[in-house]
């Protein structure tokens, strides 16, 4: 008897509640390595790929492209050996998931017999104990071809005799989703004509089913390499010659890189008079929701400090003069200094979702990057582990890939602290909104020559204004002040960062 494992809708970040299936990478009968790509899922933020947690054979796909599946919902079942349909059914039933063949529910009539009421003039339709009628009041209505619906919902509605005008749409972009159909069908006590799961056609130990280029197959045979043991980096997931050679050389098989995200949808707009109306969509919609929520929910308070960055600028000049392989910016030094200061102030290196406070030992620092569809906050993971040069190189890469929409999931989420720098625009100082669920954000202004008094003498120095917004639910004024004071000390005497 095979061990079955479930592939479920993951939770990519605190904001994610559901995802829409964009494209399957596997079919029933496919053999998977652990971490193999299973299905692309689109959320409000990103398109990313769900991977298999364990190796095995795909024995059932439990949702279709276009379905919106809640976090934790069942997507596919993987077996480590032969599994019959009953076994799979039992497994799916045991999960209570949203399988393609949902466990039949008790007919409501049996569970709670409706008391007969004679007071109404109309009689409620009797809950059917018999098989559902093929037509119902859901089938009435005008041509529904212009009702927005997901392709899957439209197909199943047509099969099930449901006119889409009779279904309340709650899917993405106001479309009728499969879930809407289910609700409507349940309300009318109608069975949906769901497609049967594809038959599992068995698998064999040989590798003749493995998708491979002709040369790779021939070379594998010659070298005695089983194609199942090869990576499939060729086009369309084929095993290529290089994969066979790599397997033959017994080199490691690293997990495939995370799939790149596709560009967010463009904003639909329609002109009315001289006013352009836009329904916020994609990234902009997410930003709108996130900042509104943060500003409404989080009791922000702000502390400010002036920092003399003459020393930091001297350090930058020295580094850039001696090394051509890096170009360190003041912002890179600032990130580095924040990482150091956060080590001593874990209260600011934290995430808070309203109930649970997570304090982190590593500083994952998000930086605001202006992109076409709105500001993005790519995350530099464990910034404290990186030297200045590595910080600079990583930030250039993150900022570029933020603009091209090619950030991996863990580069978009998981920030424990955030920085927003508008100094390059000549902004003196400003007030930033907390990047939830992180508990503080540093707003950085331009470094400018300003008069300062030193030892009673009026002189000048390069002054940068820092403003820290903190979540007062978990950060107190003294915490913020102490962190900012340490940050100032590090930036004014950068050698301290070595300590």
């Amino acid at each position, binding site marked *: 008897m095979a061990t079955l494992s479930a592939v479920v809708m993951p939770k990519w970040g605190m904001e994610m509640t559901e995802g829409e299936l964009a494209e399957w990478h596997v079919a029933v009968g496919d053999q998977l390595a652990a971490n193999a790509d299973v299905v692309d899922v689109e959320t409000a933020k990103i398109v990313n790929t769900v991977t298999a947690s364990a190796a095995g054979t795909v024995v059932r796909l439990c949702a279709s492209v276009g379905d919106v599946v809640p976090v934790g919902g069942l997507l596919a079942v993987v077996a480590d050996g032969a599994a019959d349909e009953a076994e799979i059914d039992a497994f799916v039933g045991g999960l209570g998931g949203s399988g393609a063949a949902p466990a039949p529910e008790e007919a409501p009539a049996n569970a709670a017999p409706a008391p007969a009421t004679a007071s109404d003039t109309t009689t409620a339709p009797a809950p059917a104990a018999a098989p559902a009628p093929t037509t119902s009041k859901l089938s009435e209505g005008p041509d529904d071809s212009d009702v927005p619906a997901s392709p899957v919902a439209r197909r199943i509605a047509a099969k099930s005799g449901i006119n889409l005008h009779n279904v309340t749409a709650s899917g993405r972009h106001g479309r009728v989703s499969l879930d809407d159909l289910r609700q409507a069908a349940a309300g009318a006590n109608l069975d949906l004509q769901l497609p049967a799961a594809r038959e599992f056609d068995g698998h064999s130990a040989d590798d003749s089913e493995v998708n491979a280029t002709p040369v790779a197959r021939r070379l594998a045979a010659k070298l005695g390499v089983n194609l199942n043991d090869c990576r499939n980096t060729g086009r369309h997931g084929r095993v290529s010659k290089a994969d066979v050679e790599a397997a033959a050389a017994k080199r490691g098989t690293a997990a495939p890189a995370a799939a790149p995200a596709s560009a967010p949808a463009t904003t639909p707009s329609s002109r009315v008079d001289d006013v352009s109306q836009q329904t916020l969509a994609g990234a902009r919609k997410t930003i709108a929701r996130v900042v509104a929520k943060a500003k409404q929910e989080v009791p922000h308070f702000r502390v400010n400090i002036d920092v003399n960055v003459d020393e930091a600028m001297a350090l930058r000049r020295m580094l850039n003069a001696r090394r051509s*392989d*890096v170009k360190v910016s003041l912002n890179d030094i600032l990130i580095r200094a924040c990482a150091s200061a956060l080590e001593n102030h874990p209260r600011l290196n934290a995430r808070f979702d309203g109930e649970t406070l997570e304090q982190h030992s590593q500083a994952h620092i998000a930086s605001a990057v202006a992109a076409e569809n709105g500001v993005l906050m790519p995350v530099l993971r464990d910034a404290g582990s990186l030297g200045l040069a590595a910080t600079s190189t990583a930030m250039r*890469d993150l900022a*570029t890939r933020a603009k*091209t929409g090619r950030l991996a999931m863990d580069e978009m989420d998981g920030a424990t602290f955030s920085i927003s720098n508008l100094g390059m*625009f000549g902004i003196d100082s400003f007030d930033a909104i907390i990047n939830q669920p992180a508990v503080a954000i540093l707003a950085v202004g331009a470094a400018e020559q300003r008069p300062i008094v030193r030892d009673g003498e009026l002189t000048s120095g390069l002054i940068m204004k820092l403003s820290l917004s903190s979540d007062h639910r978990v950060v107190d004024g003294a915490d913020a002040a102490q962190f900012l004071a340490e940050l100032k000390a590090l930036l004014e005497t950068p050698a301290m960062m070595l300590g």
Partner: protein
Amino acid sequence: MSKVNDYDLMVIGGGPGGYSAAIRSSQLGLKTALIEKAELGGVCLNWGCIPTKALLHCAELVNDIRSASKYGIDVTLNSIDIALMVGHSRNTASRLSSGVAYLIKKNGIDVIEGSAALKEPCVVTVSGATGERDYRSPHIVVATGATLRNLPDLDPQSPRVWSARDAMTPDANPGSLVVIGAGAIGVEFASFYADVGASVTLVEAADRILPTEDPEISARMQKALKSRGITCHTSTFFDSFTDGADQGVVQVRSGDTVSDIACDRVLVAVGVSANTDGLGLDSLGVALDRGFIQTDAHGATNVAGLYAIGDVAGAPWLAHKAVHEGVVCIEHLAGVDAKPAGERLIPGCIYARPQVASIGLTEPAAREAGRNFSVGRFDLQANGKALASGHGDGMVKVILDDDTGEILGAHMIGYGVSEQIQGYAIAMGAELTNKEFEEVVFPHPTQSEAMHEAVLDAEGIALNQ
């Protein structure tokens, strides 16, 4: 102090590699600028690939008219107006250059006219007609190309000493021409000028013309050129050039033998040097290899935010290689998975009469690599379509790996082979074995059937020879 970046990415040089990189960058959502000091399209469009192909088309027409009587067509070639040929060539170039301008505009790329110099990493100074300005960009791609090298003893000011550009815009037919260097460029010019009536001598230091091609192809080409009256001196070195009132004299040396060749013009095509002058690479400490910028597999140099693609980053100096390098460089830095251009097979074509097209390993290279291989050949004398069209001079040669059936190399000489080599490029790129290739049905009658037969021949089962 932090300053706003003017662009997310800037490309220096608007040749095929540079403008393709700029378009890909813009497609991926980066705010992009292209810096060009002369014409968009670079040498390829304006002073290389395209204008020479226009001239070679004229030469082919000349040859067709000359041989028309063979087919019962009575035409007389009265005269050749080289100025009009050059006119066709220049028109083609300028039409394509404005096409590039359209593409650049369509993709929302800013063109900055002027010469670029790198001031420091991520800062480039552009000097143009309107003055000088610094631009900031976290990514700067150098795509400045390369220029044909001159020889130290040749005075480029002398009217008898031709640069490639001079050879593309002659005001009259040179009575006699010596071409130093029998690589692709030298052989193409030799072919053109022989067809329009010049007496042409090729001088090559290696022991065969087209020294990077398969030796059999070199031999076939040398034979073909000889039959057209072109003299080929191989293992022969250029010594000196003496300018004279009526003619110049090229002195060459082969072993201990020194000989003089009188000529009206001398053209040097012995290789290229990278266009790096004035870019400020030294001050940035950019690593070079024999003058070409060193990069990793994705075009990154040793300097932060600096990349190099195309001719300036080294051989092979081919426009299509530059395009792939440009796209790979951009895709990689933008986070798109891209197979390095160096791992892609790059075909090469020579548009002389006959044409040469090749991809992958030559026979000596396969031997040196220790491959266990078979060679298949098919002569166009046995190809019906080639004979019917009067293009029976040529052959196809393939190198087949005996262990895997992989096509290791393909070498073609004959009419129009530059349009056929992609058949092998696709097969090799897709890692087809000889078996799949043999299963492909080639239409009859076509010259491309020879490609099929050559693969069959490697197994000794060619049907038509």
